């Protein structure tokens, strides 16, 4: 049903918009859980982009295959950013990384003509890297960052672990984790597609 539609029209219709809205809700819910878990231990915060990538692969890939039109990922990102902005979790750094990741992911989808699994996987990996803006200030403005967050009620232990983790090696891990785990997430999605969704005609 949707294949004939996509051939004829590349603009988002009511149905596409509603689908994007629903999957954005699921994406945001999973994202938010890991955002909260970041407060438990520094390592969880640094690995957050990777963990989010691992667990949001399925909704992203379903959205990408259901709405094979430009703009779906942009709107997904915009909604996520808007809700986070309102709850005060988005800083300028993450807005920049997140926005550029969304645009790049959208470009990749366009270049891959929206249908290919590889194209969607690459776009998802790029999209996931957008979340690195959350821990990135650790490396960007290390000293002022620590000066700013210490004395705000954050425990000294968390800070000292965080300080010892903020080295170059961890930076590489932090940036690569969403790429690698994003690909893993997409592969999981593919397995699930075969196992469940294709049969039911969802994708």
């Amino acid at each position, binding site marked *: 049903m949707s294949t004939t539609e996509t051939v004829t029209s590349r603009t*988002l*219709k*009511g*149905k596409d*918009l*509603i*689908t*994007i*809205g*629903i*999957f*954005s*809700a*699921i994406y*945001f*819910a999973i994202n938010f859980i890991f955002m*909260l878990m970041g*407060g*438990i231990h520094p390592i969880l915060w640094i690995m957050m982009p990777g963990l989010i990538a691992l*667990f949001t692969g*399925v*909704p992203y890939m*379903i959205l990408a295959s*259901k709405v094979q039109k430009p*703009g779906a990922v942009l*709107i997904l990102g*915009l*909604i996520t950013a*808007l*809700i986070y*902005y*309102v*709850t*005060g*979790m988005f800083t300028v750094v993450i807005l920049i990384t997140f926005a550029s990741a969304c645009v790049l992911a959208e470009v990749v989808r366009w270049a891959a003509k929206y249908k290919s699994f590889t194209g969607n996987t690459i776009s998802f990996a790029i999209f996931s890297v957008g979340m690195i803006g959350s821990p990135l200030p650790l490396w960007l403005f290390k000293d002022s960052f620590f000066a700013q967050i210490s004395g*705000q*009620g*954050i*425990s000294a*232990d*968390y800070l000292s672990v965080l300080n010892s983790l903020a080295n170059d090696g961890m930076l590489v891990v932090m940036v690569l984790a969403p790429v690698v785990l994003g690909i893993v997430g997409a592969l999981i999605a593919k397995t*699930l597609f075969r196992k*469940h*969704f294709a049969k*039911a005609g*969802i994708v």
Partner: protein
Amino acid sequence: MAEKGKRGTQELRLDPRTALLLLLFVTIVVFSHGSPYVEFALIAALLCLFFCCGLFKSGLKFILVFVFLLALQYYIFPVAPKIFADFFSILTFYTRKVFPCIMIGTFIVKTEPMRYLILAMRKWHFPQKLVIPLSVTLRYFPAIREEIVYIRDAMKLRRVTGAAKVEAYIVPLMFSAASTAEELSAAAVTRGIENPAPKTSVIELHFRMRDYICIICGLLFVVAALWLR
């Protein structure tokens, strides 16, 4: 949806545009100030808003939660076991920081029906392609929670462990999301969501005296916060 029953005092509703502006102001204030005085004043002002609009119960709840947070930060964490304190101090810190945002967010959810908010966004010429998905997203969150409760209940009947558990959560969630998308869009298309003509509305929005008062108060807070930083 939540208009009847929930709110007896219909007349005391703010214009949705005012509510959204207040949300913006609160966010600016929260992220530019550092002084506890601004924080307390802002929370007090928001509480006034709650009580003026008849939200006594949630106002009281917010007072209790805030007192609890303060008690945690100043009295309990210093003497609590270290692991416990480490675990919760950041969460507490962030909750306290964004507390005003949560308050105004709750206020909007409780007093403004979704269609008023949609109308407000339309009046501000938000693109339709953002308004529709955004309103669907906001409405779908409670559905996710419900869905997860059902899935958990169903899982209790069998022994599901490990990775299978994640799969058992995510697959039904995706199925219900996909079918909801299908049904909702059928309903929405039937009701003319794809009609390109400008949308009309039975509701009319008016700024009233209380809206101006709220906006001026909000602006004063923004100025104070930026000035005191």
